[in-house]
């Protein structure tokens, strides 16, 4: 139709009579060509501007020649190891602090978000105060304040606060008891401890399975089958029996002070603690708003129906409201996790050796800024992909299964 309408009485095809500049497809080609030409020119300019530098990733395999503190589970000597190794230690530090902060922030966020909707005026207003304070101040300033409090507000290690020989508190951080492999009853080899930890994992899996089966029976028969109690007992029995069978291969290591440092146990240093605390509170305040919004987005009929069948306030929350709100909040919460991951780069400000701090030290020492930046961005993107991949799995599990 269009072709017929456009073809003029002369009989020539329409495309020949419309000037090239006014043909839609030709125009697109022009625009695209011009755009590509401009982009290529810009790229050439950037490459030539940066051309005066030396490139190559060879510097990563040379010895790092500096040391970083605050490590955990890595045996590492900064003076001889390569720069790549020290960078990976930094990556591991980032993963640690982000993991702790994400877990705690979710907890804080759900509690505060629910509290904001509490019928208790005092609770609701306190939660609002919390959110307004911590959401509207820069994360970096928060971290620095926590760091200053932990460093200067707490006593020195000479006057360490000792709570029952188990918890030590000073400006060198908190030391807590920690499980430690030891020679058990069988005078056994070290792998006994490892196999006990493996048994714990298996026990947890079995207990979860038992719980799921019992819940299924509950749904089918309507009889109460005590899923949580039975599951917890199962886990306790497996853990206890294997502990005895393997000859008690793991003991609890209490922290002590040796000179000016903590020995044994597990020490949480102020750098880690302040960063984790700031990330937790900041991200938690954002998650609280997400939780509140998704609860408010639920139709009021859900709560009313739960009231009508006589559920208590706690049951209404855990059985009706939160499971449904969860579906709505997961995408936004994932975004918050991703920002928490990137926000952890303020570690530099509290002397915590995360990947960005380590990378900037490397760059300060030998230059190669472009390669180092490339490394940083690739690492953050990979970490983000891991987080969103995990959250996709969670999302797939909680989304509505259409029956």
């Amino acid at each position, binding site marked *: 139709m269009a072709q017929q309408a456009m073809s003029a009485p002369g009989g020539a095809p329409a495309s020949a009579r419309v000037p090239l500049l006014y043909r839609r497809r030709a125009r*697109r080609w022009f*625009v*695209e060509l011009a*755009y*590509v030409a401009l*982009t290529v020119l810009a790229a050439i*300019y*950037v490459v030539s*501007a*940066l051309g*005066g530098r030396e490139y190559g990733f060879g510097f990563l395999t040379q010895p790092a020649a500096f040391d970083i503190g605050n490590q955990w589970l890595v045996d590492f000597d900064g003076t001889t190891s390569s720069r790549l190794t020290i960078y990976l230690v930094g990556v591991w530090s980032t993963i640690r602090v982000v993991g702790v902060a994400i877990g705690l922030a979710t907890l804080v966020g759900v509690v505060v978000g629910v509290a904001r909707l*509490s*019928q*208790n*005026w*005092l*609770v609701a207003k*306190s939660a609002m105060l919390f959110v*307004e*304070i911590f959401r*509207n*101040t*820069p*994360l*970096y*300033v*928060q971290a*620095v*304040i926590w760091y*200053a*409090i932990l460093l*200067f*507000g707490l006593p020195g290690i000479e006057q360490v606060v000792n709570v029952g020989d188990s918890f030590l508190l000073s400006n060198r951080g908190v030391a807590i008891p920690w499980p430690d492999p030891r020679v058990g009853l069988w005078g056994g080899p070290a792998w006994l401890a490892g196999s006990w930890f493996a048994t714990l994992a298996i026990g947890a899996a079995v207990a979860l399975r038992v719980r799921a089966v019992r819940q299924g029976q509950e749904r089918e028969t309507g009889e109460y089958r005590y899923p949580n109690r039975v599951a917890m007992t199962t886990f306790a029995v497996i853990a206890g029996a294997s502990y005895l069978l393997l000859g008690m291969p793991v003991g609890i290591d209490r922290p002590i002070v040796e000179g000016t440092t903590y020995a044994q146990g597990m020490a949480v240093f102020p750098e880690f603690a302040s960063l984790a605390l700031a990330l937790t509170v900041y991200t938690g305040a954002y998650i609280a708003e997400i939780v509140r919004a998704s609860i408010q987005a639920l139709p009021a009929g859900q709560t009313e129906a739960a009231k009508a069948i006589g559920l208590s306030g706690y049951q209404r929350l855990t059985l009706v409201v939160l499971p449904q709100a969860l579906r709505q909040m997961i995408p936004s919460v994932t975004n918050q996790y991703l920002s928490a991951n*990137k*926000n952890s*780069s*303020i570690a*530099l*400000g509290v002397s915590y050796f995360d990947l*960005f701090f380590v990378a*900037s030290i490397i*760059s300060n020492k030998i230059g190669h*800024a*472009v390669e180092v*930046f490339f490394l*940083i*961005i690739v690492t*953050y*993107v990979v970490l*983000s992909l891991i987080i969103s991949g995990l959250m996709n799995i969670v999302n797939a599990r909680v989304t509505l299964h259409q029956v």
Partner: protein
Amino acid sequence: MTNEFPAPDPVPGPVAPLRARRVVLPPARQRAARPRSVRAREWIRQNLVPSPAGVLLTLVSLSVLIAVLGVAAWFTFSYANWRVVTDNRWLLFAGGFPHDGEWRLWVAFGFVFTLVGASYGMWSSLGRRDVLFMVPAGLFAVFMLAHGDAALWSTLWFLISAALLAVAYAAFRRIPREHGPTRTLAVRALGPVLALSVPIVFLVLMAGGGADSDELSGYLLNLLLAPAGIVGGLFVGIPLAIGRASRLRTISWTCTVYIETVRGAPLIGWLFVALFILGDIIGGDLIVRTMVVLAVFTGAYMAEYIRGGLQALPRGQYEAGHAVGLPYWRTLQLIILPQALRISIPPIVGQAISLWKDTALISIILPLRELIGSSRSAIAQGEFITNRIEIYVFAALMFWIIAFIMSRVSQRIERSLGVGQR
């Protein structure tokens, strides 16, 4: 049906004292008629002590609140040495800004106040709460700038700025709210000034023998960099969003790559680029490079929010533009963008707040001393070396005030533009 209207409720007599545990409240109008003491008791019963568990909750939260407020009060009034702030106020506010150029600060202050008044008169109205905010904010600015003999002058200049605000507000308040030639003219006059306000302020501060770029520091620098990043971010973000939604593959593909790359790394990483890499590409002062990085970074986020707005519009809007014969760009300008931007205002303001807070990151790795950097110089003096917590709490408060005002303004914009209602 003789009686068309239901009979009014009988006027309530004196209410018998409520003894029952569970209170069933009468309709609101009758409740309001009761004495204040009864209403207060009811309110307390409903909101604070509804049940035994509720009493426990109230007690627990009350004790936590008292503990936190107690520590805060002890810190503020007993522990803290606020001289670290009062002695360094010029350093914290304007840092290295030359003293003899102080009038430039005040002219800029008056200009911004006039713009605020005009914008309020144009699009909104000043509520009692806004005045409650502005008076302390202005008095605070006087306090920060009043040093030595200048106390009288700063007070005078503040009064002049406040008068400018009031005059601009009154003038723009008279413009009719309905669309018409007067309003269009006013929008066309005010819009460009708003868009160019950041360069104008820079001109006022720096042109003709004013401050050098390395003399801009302190809170002033935050107040300059954040708007530059926000306005620049909009200028970067709108074309990027349109490009990403474009049907031309090369354009949409490159825009996507750009957006995802920028969002992939933290801001502090991009500041690293401003310090070590960008100098070779665009040259210029570090402060200019920082502004470019802030705009480029914010632009990528804003592009995503604007794209959300673009996608939320039904296809019919594009088709309608096409049907009345508008070319592509005019369709965008007249039909698509006004609606898309309105939808994306809340997340854009959220990003603006986020950028405002992120200006605190600048002095982590850059040798620019914004408020945090100035705070660090303040506690580097031997006298104040132990007053770390005080100075950072003060800085946090400074950031909080602006962020809080911005979030309130964004709620107001949402309401007045009817986001989610049209």
